[in-house]
């Protein structure tokens, strides 16, 4: 299956003159019968921060390991600085990597861990000591250099791993979910701190995470992977607003899904038929196509029944099933008879006066109701 992925936005002003930092073309990796990565292509400009998201086992680590040189692609080409790296062993690639399980050297102190890449690269002794101090200060671990990894907290080990990966001034930094083991508070602190370090040093970064918020907040570019494929690669705004596949639409945010049939199409404006009602939405499909529709909770408006309907239709009657108070707002789950009583999630102001069991009018924003041609027989969740 090929899909038209829009050209990734130009992220740095000098991108036109220098070759991209990383170019991946049609890369696949098979382990026996398992296809870990399938025909992945992406381009990353110098200085950019790219995040890879996707469900467990979708090939994120494998893709990183191929860029780092720990695995060889079964097919395709990887260029770094415009040069094909197929024949370049990992130790000559000048890439810093922070592993999923950190992989600090347990027999060395934090300072020795950080000095390791400098020593192996033959830096002068005096320079190494100064650089280690500098890196310890950068990750706010001054004074803890003599501790062994097991004498440090999880967050501190984390920072040693980042300092070690950055110490030799790599052109490219790969982060494989290094923050996943931390509690949310610490993680969010580290995210900000990391973004600060990354911007200070201007190092091009590829980050893998399961944390949507982290992806949306930190990245210039997000790649969504599923089953080894890149579903979409774009900047966070586009990704969130213009999902190109059902998977991307459902992966980010709180999304409701339902099946429909295309009645008419005018460009990407679609008229959809669902359970005897007519809805308007967007997508690339032809009349008669069966489609899966996705809409995010924040694009669904719930009002007490009897409220005058909005202009342009797309308002369906429903029953309010649950109202979950979330502090600043309420999450509302409504059931729409037109959608076969499928639950639809929405957000409402905490003071909207909704209660479970009440009849409601549900408005689905036609600009953000996305329809995707149903390609799989997969049951809708």
């Amino acid at each position, binding site marked *: 299956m090929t899909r038209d992925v829009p050209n990734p936005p130009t992220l740095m002003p000098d991108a036109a003159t220098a070759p991209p930092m990383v170019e991946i073309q049609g890369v696949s990796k098979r382990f026996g019968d398992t296809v870990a990565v399938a025909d992945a292509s992406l381009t990353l400009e110098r200085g950019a921060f790219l995040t890879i998201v996707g469900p467990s086992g979708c090939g994120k680590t494998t893709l990183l390991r191929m860029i780092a040189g720990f695995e060889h692609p079964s097919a395709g080409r990887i260029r770094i600085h415009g040069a094909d790296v197929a024949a370049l062993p990992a130790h000559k690639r000048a890439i810093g990597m922070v592993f999923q399980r950190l992989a600090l050297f347990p027999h060395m102190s934090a300072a020795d861990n950080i000095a390791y*890449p400098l020593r*192996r690269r033959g830096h002068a002794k005096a320079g190494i000591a100064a650089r280690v101090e500098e890196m310890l200060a950068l990750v706010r671990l001054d004074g803890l250099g003599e501790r062994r990894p097991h004498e440090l907290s999880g967050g501190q080990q984390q920072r040693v791993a980042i300092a*070690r990966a950055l110490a030799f001034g790599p052109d490219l930094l790969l982060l494989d979910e290094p923050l996943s083991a931390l509690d949310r508070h610490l993680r969010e602190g580290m995210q900000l701190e990391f973004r600060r370090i990354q911007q200070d040093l201007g190092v091009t970064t590829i980050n893998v995470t399961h944390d949507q918020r982290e992806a949306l907040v930190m990245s210039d570019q997000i790649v969504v992977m599923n089953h080894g494929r890149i579903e979409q690669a774009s900047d966070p705004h586009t990704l969130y607003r213009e999902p190109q596949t059902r998977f991307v639409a459902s992966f980010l945010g709180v999304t409701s899904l339902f099946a429909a049939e295309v009645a008419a199409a005018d460009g990407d404006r679609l008229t959809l038929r669902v359970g005897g009602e007519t809805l308007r939405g967007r997508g690339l499909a032809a009349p008669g196509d069966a489609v899966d529709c996705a809409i995010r909770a924040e694009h669904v408006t719930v009002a007490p029944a009897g409220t005058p309907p909005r202009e342009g239709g797309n308002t369906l009657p429903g029953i309010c099933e649950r109202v979950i108070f979330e502090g600043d707002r309420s999450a509302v789950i409504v059931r729409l008879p037109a959608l076969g009583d499928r639950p639809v999630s929405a957000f409402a102001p905490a003071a909207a006066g909704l209660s479970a069991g009440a009849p409601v009018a549900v408005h689905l924003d036609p600009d953000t109701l996305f329809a995707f041609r149903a390609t799989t027989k997969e049951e809708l969740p």
Partner: protein
Amino acid sequence: MNAGAAPATRRRLPTGWLLLAPALLLTGVLLIGLGQMLELSLHELDLSNYRLKPEYSLANYETVLSRPVTWRVLLRTFAGAGLVTLATLILAFPYAYLLVRTPSALVRKALLVALFLPFFIGQVVRAYGWLIILGREGLANAVLTGLGLPAQDLLFSYGTVLFGLVQYMLPFAVLLLIPALAAIPDDIERASEGLGANWPSTFLFVLLPLARPGLIGASVVVFTLTLTDFAMPEILGGGTQDFFASAIYDAFFQISNAGQGAALAMLLTGLGSAVVAVIFILAGTGTLGFRQSR
């Protein structure tokens, strides 16, 4: 809560000791044996009646230590144990590493089978096997003459004895190295590589230090087993390359001088323990993986 915890701790202690009892008993028996050996070594043989004299003396030690042959055999034994340990570790390390790291289940199985097969063949049988292969008319010389080279006297040399010992010790060393290497995460090596270390550097600065507990354990086991080995030097050396155990055997059973045999045994035990103690002291307390959290 506190009231409940106290009896539990009190109850736990005797259970622990009970579980230790068999091991303590065994060690105790060994210690008694050692004590008897020590006592035996302090009685000189009375050549008039071929009984041990009842009075205590250091005469056996004096005799044994004054004989050049004692020192010669001692040197041969310790040098042999050192060389065998070194050679075994050098061969066992890549074997264990491959076994742990290979992605192929087939290769792993093949390596395990190849490791265990000779394990089930006793040392004496194996030594006789080598006797046949390395003999004047054996397979080795057949290959040599087939290649147009002159036949060699391969048997009854120091080198052959050491070769046989290395071949015998290899599985022990590999088995002791496997858990040590398996405990080193794959990613640690990848990390080293990614940080700019080529393979020899990764080996030297990461793999070797992290494998140290296994290496120390394996060298102590191989060293002591070789030090006290009897069959290999006896059979492959044909009496010309005796190790210290043969000297002890001869004292006990050839010249029937139990006192002298015991003195020789005490000498070997003492020197062997000293070497092992030095290894442990040099290697530090964390050696066998105690107090080393990963």
